[in-house]
């Protein structure tokens, strides 16, 4: 398998312990999330994310995808049930350590506008006390990895294009080489051409890095193309979890409705599990 090759580009130096042999990396058990005002956003969620897979959370706005994602790095805390990351209960683990072991990429990128690209990427390594020489070489390595010219390091975010900013966002999330990546519609705000290019790069990057990725999108085409499995969500419930090929042939009415809505040509984009 291509996917197991490391190409010597990124030494595996995980900041978190690996999951106990073959267990799920992320494990949701009977999880619910209710807003303080009593409105339920998510209920009865049971979901396991396996090491090295790209799990897509697919659904429309308000279906609970982003809520699910934020429960992993404890930007939200569950109202009921429990979540384990690498076998450890998130509720009792050190939240700062937990988050530094999980890369987080959002649609609006959230780059720090007052910091140059190099400081954006180097922020967490710096806080973690890496020597500056190592930070510098890591920044250069990461910029090349996401297909950017290392010269860009001395620019400010406002001097970059949307696609460049999103790449820097990915590089920043990878800075301390976390084994898990959470991505919330990372390519949603980009034009079609740039999005296509970044999706292609995501696939090749994922083949090399073998991160465990949870990826939120409402775009079926993107889900089929990037996902190892697709978790379909609707109104705070997990409807079903299917591989991209299964999804296209599914008899589930909601899955079928998605396939119909996105029309033809979906077969050609499907991720057939080369990784």
């Amino acid at each position: 398998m291509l996917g197991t090759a490391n190409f010597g580009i990124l030494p595996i130096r995980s900041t978190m312990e690996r999951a106990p042999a073959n267990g799920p990396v992320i494990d949701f058990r009977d999880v619910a999330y209710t807003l303080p005002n009593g409105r339920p956003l998510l209920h009865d969620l049971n979901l396991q994310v396996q090491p090295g897979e790209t799990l897509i959370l697919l659904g429309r706005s308000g279906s609970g995808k982003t809520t699910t994602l934020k429960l992993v790095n404890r930007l939200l805390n569950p109202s009921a049930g429990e979540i384990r990351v690498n076998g450890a209960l998130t509720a009792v683990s050190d939240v700062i350590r937990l988050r530094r072991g999980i890369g987080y990429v959002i649609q609006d990128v959230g780059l720090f506008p007052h910091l140059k690209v190099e400081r954006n990427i180097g922020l967490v390594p710096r806080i973690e006390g890496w020597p500056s020489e190592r930070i510098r070489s890591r920044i250069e390595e990461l910029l090349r990895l996401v297909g950017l010219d290392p010269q860009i390091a001395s620019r400010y975010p406002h001097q970059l294009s949307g696609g460049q900013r999103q790449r820097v966002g990915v590089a920043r999330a990878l800075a301390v080489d976390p084994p898990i990546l959470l991505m919330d519609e990372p390519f949603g705000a980009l034009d079609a051409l740039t999005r296509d290019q970044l999706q292609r790069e995501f696939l090749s990057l994922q083949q090399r890095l073998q991160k465990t990725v949870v990826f939120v999108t409402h775009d079926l085409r993107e889900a089929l193309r990037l996902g190892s499995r697709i978790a379909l969500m609707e109104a705070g419930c997990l409807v079903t979890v299917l591989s991209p090929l299964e999804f296209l042939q599914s008899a589930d009415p909601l899955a079928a409705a998605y396939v119909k809505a996105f029309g033809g040509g979906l077969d050609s984009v499907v991720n057939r599990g080369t990784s």
Partner: protein
Amino acid sequence: MNVVHYFLQNHEEILELTLQHLWLVGISTLFAVLIGIPLGILSAHWPVWNKPVLGTANIIQTIPSLALFGFLLPVPWIGARSDRLAILALSLYALLPIIRNTYTGIRGVDPFVVEAGRGMGLTDRQLLFQVELPLAVSVILSGVRVAVVVSVGLATIAAAIGAGGLGEFIFRGLAMVNNELILAGAIPAAILALSADFGLGWVERRLRPR
């Protein structure tokens, strides 16, 4: 031409009182910054503090300055010396714009940027010092600028309680119905206010995030 003549003749005293004026404004602004910025951060992060903090600062602002000097007179230690009294009163007046702008500046930071920082594993303290304050700094500074400009004017009233400063000339001039004396206080005070406004405005523009 009388005014110019007067300025030349009394330049030593004018200089001395200008420096005294600057000292009153400078020290009181320093205190107001040291107290106002933490209070602004407090009310931005814990909304329950917002109303009491801003409300109190608002009420202080509505007290006429002469009355405030009078209120503070019986306070032990503070009331014993007029310059302490003047500095306390000026600090209290300077609080409101500084608290309000700190609050506005921090609340104005893009929530996605804050969330990204939190998701990356920054602690609250790291988030405050490395993200929120640097992004709010120009708004906070514009509050300081307003406070300084207002203080330069208010500090002239401090002369009424014998705290010195350029108000000395103004009160003396009023008592003696002497326009040159009034202008000897008013002109340097106006120059101080304008240059503080210009200088801090320049720094503020330099620090504004793009």
